[in-house]
């Protein structure tokens, strides 16, 4: 991936799903999108166990962790996973965002996002969040992160 001239040196990003979720087209899509913005992506693939997610994130010390889940268990899984990430001193301030189809009913009154933000996520992209919202978030972040 060639870097745009005006782009800053890219961020290190981990793209992952959680232990119960086997869907990967979402991960492949997010990886391509982030790479096109000039960032370096490590894609952890399907069904990432909690311990492996934490270990890989500690090892890679990324600027951003992008979690994606679409199987409908994401809301439950995310509440279990985020304390584990935040419990690591080196990941306490790392930006962690999540998106996808987080429940099984397709609708939600915003309580999913509120609960997950309160649990430690920096941003929660609702089901119909466009790729553009992630793009703007990442642009803002890469402008803010010191290089």
């Amino acid at each position: 991936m060639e870097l745009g001239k005006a782009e800053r040196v890219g961020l290190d990003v981990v793209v992952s799903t959680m232990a119960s979720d086997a869907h990967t087209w979402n991960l492949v899509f997010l990886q391509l999108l982030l790479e096109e913005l000039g960032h370096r992506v490590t894609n952890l693939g399907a069904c990432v166990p909690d311990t492996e997610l934490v270990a890989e994130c500690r090892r890679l010390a990324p600027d951003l962790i992008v979690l994606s889940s679409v199987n409908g268990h994401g809301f439950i899984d995310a509440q279990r996973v985020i304390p584990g990430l935040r419990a690591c001193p080196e990941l306490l301030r790392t930006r962690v965002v999540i998106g996808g189809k987080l429940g099984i009913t397709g609708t939600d009154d915003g309580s999913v996002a509120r609960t997950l933000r309160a649990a430690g996520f920096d941003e929660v992209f609702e089901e119909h969040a466009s790729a553009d919202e992630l793009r703007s978030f990442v642009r803002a972040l890469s402008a803010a992160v010191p290089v």
Partner: protein
Amino acid sequence: MTAEPASPTVPFGDHVARAHARGSLVVQPRMGMSRPDRMRAGLRATRGAAASTVGTITVDSYTRTGDTAAARRAVARGLALNGYPITVHQPAVTRQVLRGIADDGFPVQVRHGSARPEEIVAALLAAGLDATEGGPVSYCLPYSRVPLNVAVAAWERGCALLAEAQRTGARPHLETFGGCMMGQLCPPGLLIALSVLEALFFRQHGLRSVSLSYAQQANARQDEESVIALSRLAAALLPDVQWHIVVYAHMGMYPLTPGGARLLLREAARLAVRTGAARLIVKTTAEAHRIPTVAENVTALETAASAAGAASRASSARASAPPPVGSRPVEALPAGSPTAGSPAAEAPDTGIHAEASALIDAVLDLDPDIGRALVTAFARGYLDVPFCLHPDNAGRTRSGLDADGRLYWSAAGAMPLPARPERGSPPILGSDGLMAALSYVQRTFDRRARTESARHPRDPRITQTTDRGEHQT
């Protein structure tokens, strides 16, 4: 438990074969809820649908991945899962779910997506069921990060458990998921090869009744050619087991509109009828959005059945009814299957059969043990699924979609494919290119629905905006 017969239902394979002989397509939902009472209501509604149906218990993602503890916690907290946690609920509870429903005339299949199926197979046998689905490759690569050789060994044990039940009079049935893989963007030659190889694996491990899957892709003619190729290969390679073909309604990004979803489902039903397939797994108008309700599933079953009925009436009007391809009447022939007759569809040969045969032969040549042959084939890249992130997949192949939705190889990696003119066609590029390819079917059918509803504004089959019903979980 031991007092009860191992298999209270009519054998799954026999049931489908009989329906096929009668000329009716068996339709089946994807359905699973965490609560036993809801699961029971769903099975009852499936049985009551105005269609020739079989029932489904779809297992939730925690149970699939072996995390029974997480499934148990969720059940204890009353959280709704995306399927039925069959290893959490006691066998007696599952028997209660099935009582009076899964008796003669209504077999129920367990669909689960587990790379290590032993516990799930043990649980379904304990509940008196004996039909399930999967395969050492198709339930590993798209569903897990379990090493392929571990999944192969686990599936050998899973097959052995099922095969053992044959000794107590059960007639276990196992369906390959190999005809689906990542749901979309895998060219049909590889889907067919994997479906056949998994069926051969099941047979090598003692199964006597199998079905071979194929998931509807993005071009109707290509799909017809593919299902016919699959039938021909099954007939040639599985002479001594009972088998039938099962078509899956599209397994990739589904149309967003109810009209588009219904058109796509009807096309899947026509595909099944035209190619002589015996069974169809449906998708609902909720597919692109969330887990469907029971009512949405019933509507989908009935939509598919009516489309299938219309298609078979049309084809028998055109010619005398096509000989059954997929399976045969068990009464006449207790084992083995028919040779492929000439189905209604006459898709031109673009080389899919040759491609699938070349892959199957290359794999079978590697080792007489099919499990070992599959592991070696993936290690060498003879089999290589495009866009699959699993560590044991070589990842050197790429596919593309042409303007008509036909799938082709843009990069064949190390796969021993016969020379094809498509080779060297443009690859899918970037996130926009990927999204365009993934959403091709969705966009095509949503557009078709808009056009048709503009043309027939009163046709409820197209304009009806929502299928009513309480949410299932």
